[in-house]
């Protein structure tokens, strides 16, 4: 809400300092987000500090100053006799406006550049002194701060009023807070002149007391429509509204002042001069005064005359009864409508006005009459009109003040601090509450505060004005609570450490993706749709992490960042109809390197490929002590056929890996080959051993033998390893492949494999006599089972 300080000042008997008032309001929960300086005799002038003074060649009287103007150092040429370094001065920057329509421009004086002007008091219109520049001796001033015209300026506060405080959507409401914050009483600016009643009452019928608790109205006649005086126009424009004509401007002025929205009908356009408040029911459409045709629903609250709707209650009047230049008689409405009813209509129709902003949060049901009388008094004075009816005030559903008991001991318990009783009374009564008794304090809350309904609300009011900063931090004496460690969270952090330790960099991708992205990898699952996405690119929740990683690859490769090892840990979602979707934590990684990467200078390191991903999973399994791990071929969407495989541990499927299919890469706009894996976090956690089983290290040395053999190219190395281990007589503990060769020295269709075998006995040191027969048996077996031939 925007409020000119001068308007607030009308209500406060002590002079207000703009920045101090803003500070106090902010610390009382009415955050002043900005202060705009308007009016005044000049603008664009800041505080500057003269850093150095030097000559201007060829000009005796001129000096070239270097000035710190906050945003940087600027050169300014100055001819004043009292210029010297170190002083603070007002500097009119380029674009500044000074009295007498003077605009400051960047100029060159005698070959010296000047980016502003150091001002005298007369140049700023602040006095007659033109003997030298104005020297400011307030040491708290900082270069770059605005130099303001304290008398001629007004300050427009932009106050962030939280939705629980509809009473502060007006000058009077803010003024009440300001008065309490300055320890003074609220001053009413002008007493409402009672205007004599004339004519009969207004014919008002409230058919829906739930929607309209109170409707107050009066007719005025002999109105002359014209522009409103400047002081009204200036204030409502400062508050962000447009001036229209005297009648409309006055309704807006009084609304900004009191918070009560008012509406003026052209009384001669009201059928039968009647007002009926009712729900739309069968009425289907209505044209609001902005010319828009609105489709109504049966629940919308309408103001009707004898024949038709004339206003969307509390939101906007109708075109059919609008005040225009020819209007002579008006009916002025000041009513209280049910906030929820207004809010529903606002939401549904998508219409909003200054009136509805207040109505939907709740205006004071007791305030309709005062606001009406205030507006009538101003209208009579400014538009020449005179009353054509008495004030008609129909209360369909009385809304009474709430009474709340406040226990001082409860304040102590909630705040952990003692607040003097006198402060409690001062604050509550300063907010317009009636206070009786001491323990408990019986508080009657004015109807303008719909947010205060219970004891805790009163405690908040008390501490808000007592000062949050006066509650000292102090740790309570409550004892230790149980330790609840979160196994899943700790596991995920461990995975992050393992993967980053293996050279993978962690990425965070958006969980909201486009439709296509949910179909790229793995068996399709129903994706969770977002009903109101910002764009089609974010209309679904991700079903896998791989597409996001592909996007990270694309982003980096497009910026010539290659050699990528990335991982992400995050949730994926599967749609489950009406209820909440299934959320699972996934762990995924990619390896992608450009063919342009040159490698290490000394010996060429292998280019990362499919085996790098498999090796990553093997290392991960090793790091986590996973048991019964296996890799099985398994076709999977998104992977190049043949490279797709699943990773199992403990007999359960953990996830899959492979090389990203070229069609997927094309869809993701990725040019380089990408190898990836994606695992299920909870499956991984489930097969995690509680702690590793530790055995003593072998006491006797192993005997190592190398074995080179040639087999058909199609024989899987794993099956040979299996044969080796099965025929090791229980002493062969490992058979590691150290070479694989296919080429010139090997017959076509065959490959050469070389293993290191380690034999180990827990009981004694093995000798050649132990190992030789085992080796012979192994070789025979390899020959017969795999058609292997020994390579010498």
């Amino acid at each position: 809400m925007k409020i000119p300080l001068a308007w607030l000042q009308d209500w406060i008997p002590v002079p207000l300092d703009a920045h101090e008032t803003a500070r106090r309001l902010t610390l009382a929960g009415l955050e002043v987000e900005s202060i705009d300086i308007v009016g005044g005799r000049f603008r664009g002038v800041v505080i500057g500090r003269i850093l150095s003074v030097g000559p201007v060649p060829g000009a005796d009287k001129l000096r070239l100053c270097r000035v710190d103007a906050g945003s940087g150092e600027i050169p300014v040429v100055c001819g004043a006799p009292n210029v010297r370094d170190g002083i603070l001065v007002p500097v009119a920057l380029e674009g500044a406006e000074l009295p007498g329509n003077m605009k400051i421009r960047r100029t060159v004086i005698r070959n010296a550049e000047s980016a502003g002007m150091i001002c005298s008091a007369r140049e700023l219109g602040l006095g007659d002194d033109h003997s030298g520049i104005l020297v400011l001796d307030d040491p708290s001033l900082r270069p770059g701060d605005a130099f303001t015209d304290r008398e001629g300026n007004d300050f427009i506060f932009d106050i962030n009023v939280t939705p629980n405080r509809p009473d502060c959507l007006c000058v009077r409401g803010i003024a009440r807070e300001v008065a309490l914050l300055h320890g003074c009483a609220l001053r009413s600016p002008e007493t409402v002149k009672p205007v004599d009643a004339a004519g009969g009452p207004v014919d008002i019928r409230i058919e829906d007391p739930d929607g309209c608790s109170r409707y107050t109205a009066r007719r005025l006649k002999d109105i002359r429509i014209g522009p409103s005086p400047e002081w009204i126009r200036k204030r409502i424009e400062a508050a962000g509204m447009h001036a229209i004509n005297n009648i409309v401007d006055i309704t807006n002025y009084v609304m900004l002042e009191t918070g009560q929205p008012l509406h003026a009908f052209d009384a001669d356009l009201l059928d039968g001069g009647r007002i009926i408040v009712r729900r739309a029911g069968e009425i289907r459409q209505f044209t609001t005064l902005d010319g828009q045709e609105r489709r109504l629903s049966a629940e919308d609250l309408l103001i009707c005359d004898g024949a038709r709707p004339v206003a969307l209650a509390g939101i906007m009047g109708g075109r059919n009864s609008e005040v225009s230049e020819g209007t002579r008689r008006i009916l002025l409405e000041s009513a209280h409508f049910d906030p929820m009813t207004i809010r529903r209509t606002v939401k549904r129709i998508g219409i909003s006005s200054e009136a509805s902003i207040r109505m939907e949060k709740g205006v004071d049901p007791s305030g309709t009459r005062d606001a009406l009388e205030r507006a009538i008094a101003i209208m009579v004075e400014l538009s020449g009109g005179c009353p054509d009816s008495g004030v008609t005030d129909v209360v369909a559903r009385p809304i009474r003040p709430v009474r709340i008991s406040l226990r001082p001991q409860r304040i102590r318990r909630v705040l952990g601090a003692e607040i003097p009783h006198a402060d409690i009374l001062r604050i509550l009564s300063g907010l317009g509450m009636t206070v009786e008794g001491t323990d408990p304090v019986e508080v009657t809350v004015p109807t303008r505060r719909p947010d205060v309904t219970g004891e805790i609300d009163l405690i908040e009011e008390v501490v808000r004005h007592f000062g949050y900063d006066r509650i000292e931090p102090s740790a309570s004496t409550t004892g230790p609570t149980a330790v609840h460690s979160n196994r899943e969270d700790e596991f995920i952090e461990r995975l992050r450490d393992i993967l980053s330790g293996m050279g993978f960099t962690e990425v965070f991708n958006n969980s909201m993706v486009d439709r296509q992205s949910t179909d790229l990898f793995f068996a399709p699952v129903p994706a969770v749709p977002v009903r109101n996405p910002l764009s089609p690119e974010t209309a679904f929740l991700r079903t896998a992490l791989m597409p996001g990683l592909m996007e990270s690859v694309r982003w980096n490769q497009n910026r010539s960042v290659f050699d990528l090892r990335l991982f992400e840990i995050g949730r994926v979602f599967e749609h489950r109809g009406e209820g909440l979707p299934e959320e699972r934590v996934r762990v995924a990684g990619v390896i992608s390197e450009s063919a342009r990467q040159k490698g290490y200078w000394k010996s060429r390191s292998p280019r990362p490929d499919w085996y790098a991903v498999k090796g990553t999973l093997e290392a991960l399994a090793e790091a986590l002590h996973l048991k019964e791990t296996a890799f099985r071929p398994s076709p999977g969407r998104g992977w190049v056929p043949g490279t797709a495989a699943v990773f199992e541990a403990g007999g359960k499927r953990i996830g899959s890996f492979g090389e990203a299919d070229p069609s997927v890469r094309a869809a993701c706009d990725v040019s380089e080959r990408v190898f990836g894996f994606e695992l299920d976090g909870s499956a991984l956690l489930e097969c995690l051993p509680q702690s590793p089983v530790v055995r003593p290290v072998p006491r006797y040395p192993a005997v190592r033998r190398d074995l080179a053999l040639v087999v058909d190219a199609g024989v899987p190395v794993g099956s040979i390893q299996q044969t080796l281990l099965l025929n090791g007589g229980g002493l062969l503990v490992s058979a590691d492949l150290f070479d694989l060769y296919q080429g010139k020295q090997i017959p076509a269709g065959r490959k050469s494999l070389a293993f290191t075998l380690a034999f180990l006995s827990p009981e004694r040191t093995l000798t050649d006599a132990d190992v030789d027969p085992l080796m012979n048996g192994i070789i025979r077996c390899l020959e017969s089972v795999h058609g292997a031939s020994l390579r010498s």
Partner: protein
Amino acid sequence: MASENLTGEIRKIDEAFQSRLAEAKDAPSLERIRTDFLGRKGHIARLFETLGEADPAVRREAGRLLNELKNRAQSAVLGEAARVSAKESGEDRPDLTLPGYAPPVGRLHPLTIVMRRVKSCFQKLGFAVAQGPEVESDYYNFEALNIPPGHPARDMQDTLYVSDRVVLRTHTSPVQIRVMENQKPPVRIIAPGRVYRRDTPDASHSPVFHQVEGLCVDEGVSFADLKAVILAFAREMFGSDMTIRFRPSFFPFTEPSAEYDFTCVICRGKGCRVCKNTGWVEISGAGMVNPEVFRFAGIDSERYTGYAFGMGVERLTMLLYEVQDIRAFYENDLRFLGQF
């Protein structure tokens, strides 16, 4: 054989070995020395064979000497071999300016780094980590937090909906309710996680971001405790010179509610562009748990009191590392991520 002969023989072999070794220049000559002295038919093996025929009185001493010679010769040959091979390959004088062969270095995402610091800080203060779903029911995200349908506070956050009753959680506060439903006081938890808002991305807004929610419920927990825990956090996170400022605010699920500020971490309170010369930076919201929320969670608000607080992980990270644009966290440019 006389004992003098045997020990003298050992000494002679030793001297011969030393002089041959001193002359050895390359790997083949070393190999020859190894065969001559340490081989299966070498000088030392030959002497071992004669040991058996020696006088038992001298056998012990001669055996010890011979073993000692064997070990010394073995390590001398190995050491010399390493030196010779290093010399031949040039490794005895590496070029210190040539790049080493380094394993790849992975980095944690800055948000992970900061979230871990936040978690660690509160874990030291006795808070446990709790989790809740990112896609929430309207009940947990709003209603049970005292934000009924049609409440103006629903306008404070732009919500992304899955259906009428299901939303992408707009804050981590629903975890408060889920925890309180399952755990009677004392409760002391933090809930880190992803949240969603219908905000168009710009330098300071991201439709996906991270929060850490905190909740403490027990007998005798007060606003003063809340200030103490926030102060402790500020100092652990940003340094012991931090001060905090609480300003009244409004959240339907806390009362009294506050926005809390820290001393500007850039200028340490002196005033700068980041803090708009106020010396303070806004961190997030906090307050005492509203009795209405206790009612939804089935906790007696006369007996128990509690506080709750939130914080934005992106915001903290941006302050800690002076990151200017929130979108950088989700672009995953390695030139950005590699700096953390």
